């Protein structure tokens, strides 16, 4: 398993994170990684700069990794690659789950189905029988605290409730890997805080490996065990931080703010490179 050269170069000896990074490499070497991306490049149009350039990323089973970066860093492309919706131009993508679950920025619920119907569709795709589908959908809606909303139509649900139904649908895929593409970006701050709690709880309970893409550095530090900063044009991994803050955290915690400030500085430095 080759480690991302860039990342290791950037991390200096004085940085305490180098040690944790070392552990990460050890994880990466084990065959049981939940997600392994090695040397992945993605070119959509010939002659244009690649969207992703030599990306290496390993996610251990049960690990929560957040990807942050400015627009054009290829975060969403990377997720699409992991989800198997796109094939990489070069490099390898390995995901331990046969079909990782994916949550979009939009709830992407099907409006002609009820909340329960949306969850049941994921179960149907897995070949679950009709009777079990009902019961399992009810159980999963209970997991996201929507036990009473099963018969509601999508338009009758608030934005936060829709995103929770989407989470229940993702859980219905019964995958050990959950990919999230800025799932809370369109929500108001209060709802987002609550969903952070919800997600942190679900992650701990279900022992999922999560790859969470966001623009929001604080959100990344609040949720992740590891935060990976991506640079833009071409998208590549610039640096990563292990978040050793105790759970439960909140977005207001001093430790979260501190680390977020540090990552934001690095992000700004990275963005400012594109101005000249």
């Amino acid at each position: 398993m080759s480690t991302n050269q860039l990342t290791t170069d950037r991390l200096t000896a004085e940085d305490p994170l180098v040690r944790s990074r070392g552990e990460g490499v050890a994880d990466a070497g084990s065959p049981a990684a939940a997600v392994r991306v090695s040397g992945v490049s993605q070119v959509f149009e010939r002659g244009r700069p690649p969207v992703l350039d030599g990306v290496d990323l390993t996610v251990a089973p049960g690990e929560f990794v957040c990807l942050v970066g400015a627009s054009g860093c290829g975060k969403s492309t990377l997720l699409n690659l992991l989800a198997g919706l796109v094939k990489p131009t070069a490099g390898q993508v390995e995901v331990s789950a046969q079909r990782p679950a994916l949550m979009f920025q939009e709830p992407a619920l099907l409006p002609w189905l009820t909340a329960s119907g949306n969850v049941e569709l994921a179960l149907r795709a897995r070949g679950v029988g009709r009777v079990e589908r009902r019961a399992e959908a009810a159980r999963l809606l209970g997991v996201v605290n929507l036990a009473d909303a099963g018969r509601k139509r999508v338009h009758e649900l608030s934005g936060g409730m829709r995103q929770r139904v989407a989470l229940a649908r993702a859980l219905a895929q019964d995958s050990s890997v959950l990919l999230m593409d800025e799932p809370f970006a369109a929500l108001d701050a209060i709802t987002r805080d609550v969903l952070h709690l919800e997600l942190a709880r679900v992650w701990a309970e279900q022992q999922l490996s999560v790859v969470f893409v966001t623009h929001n550095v604080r959100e990344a530090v609040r949720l992740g065990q590891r935060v990976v900063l991506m640079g833009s044009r071409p998208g590549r991994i610039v640096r990563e931080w292990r978040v050793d803050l105790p759970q439960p955290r909140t977005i207001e915690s001093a430790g979260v703010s501190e680390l977020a400030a540090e990552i934001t500085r690095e992000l700004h430095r990275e963005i400012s490179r594109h101005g000249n």
Partner: protein
Amino acid sequence: MATSTTPSGNRAAESPDVGTRAIEAGLDALDTAATLPPGPSLGKRFVRSVLPPIVFLAALVGVWQIAYVAEVKPPYALPSPADVWEVFWESVTDGRAFEAIWTSLSRGAVGFALSLVIGTALGLAMWWSRWLRAAIGPIVSGLQSLPSVAWVPAAIIWFQLTDAAIYTVVLLGAAPSIANGLLSGMKQVPPLFDRVGRVLGLSALGRTRYVLLPAALPGYLGGLRQGWAFAWRSLMAAELITYSPQLGQGLGQLLNVGRELSQMSLVITSIALILAVGIAIELLVFAPLERRVLVRRGLTVR
């Protein structure tokens, strides 16, 4: 949190998980509390939607009566409303009106069902095959603007004066609209829905069955509605021209009888009946169907 003076804050701090659920339940209640106010009362709805057409019809009859009294046209060309009412009532009491409506409506239903099957199959085929879409797409769209009465002579030459000729005309009138409606409905399905289907691991067939077709339903219904309108028009055109004893007497043929007898009252009666059937089908079948689909999806208020 510990220094917070609000009791609820303390409670949340003591037991974070219960707190989350409580906050979540509160947010859900607040966010979805904005239910719609109750709809207008029956009386208001009557005043809003039933009264206006009645007033308009009454005004129309009034103007007609004035035109009759003023003899804008000689009475054989412009009979009085009372004369027309008499003929209309007679056709109702002697059963001719119902017979004509039944004949036409059953033909329309069979023709429409035929168009539904063929139009839907055509729309699906055009969706699946890019080549087919490119090849016949413009023709199918063009057929929508071709007055289907233009097919009547050809249909008579092929099938003589039989029901088959009439069905052919109805089919050529309605099927293109249905195919186009389905196709445009499918084209308007957000790509995100297809991604959802892929992420969930549905097969191509499963995505069509559970995602694409239901998503395209509003567009398809629009196509069906237009298809019915075209079918009904084509049917009247065909009945008007193919007049023969073994064909029975539909509304179009009734209209033709009025023309041949120069009986304007019967002509107006027939037109009124044709219009009434068209309005009834729209109000009793398509409007409720479309409303139901749209309301379910939250695409219309009520």
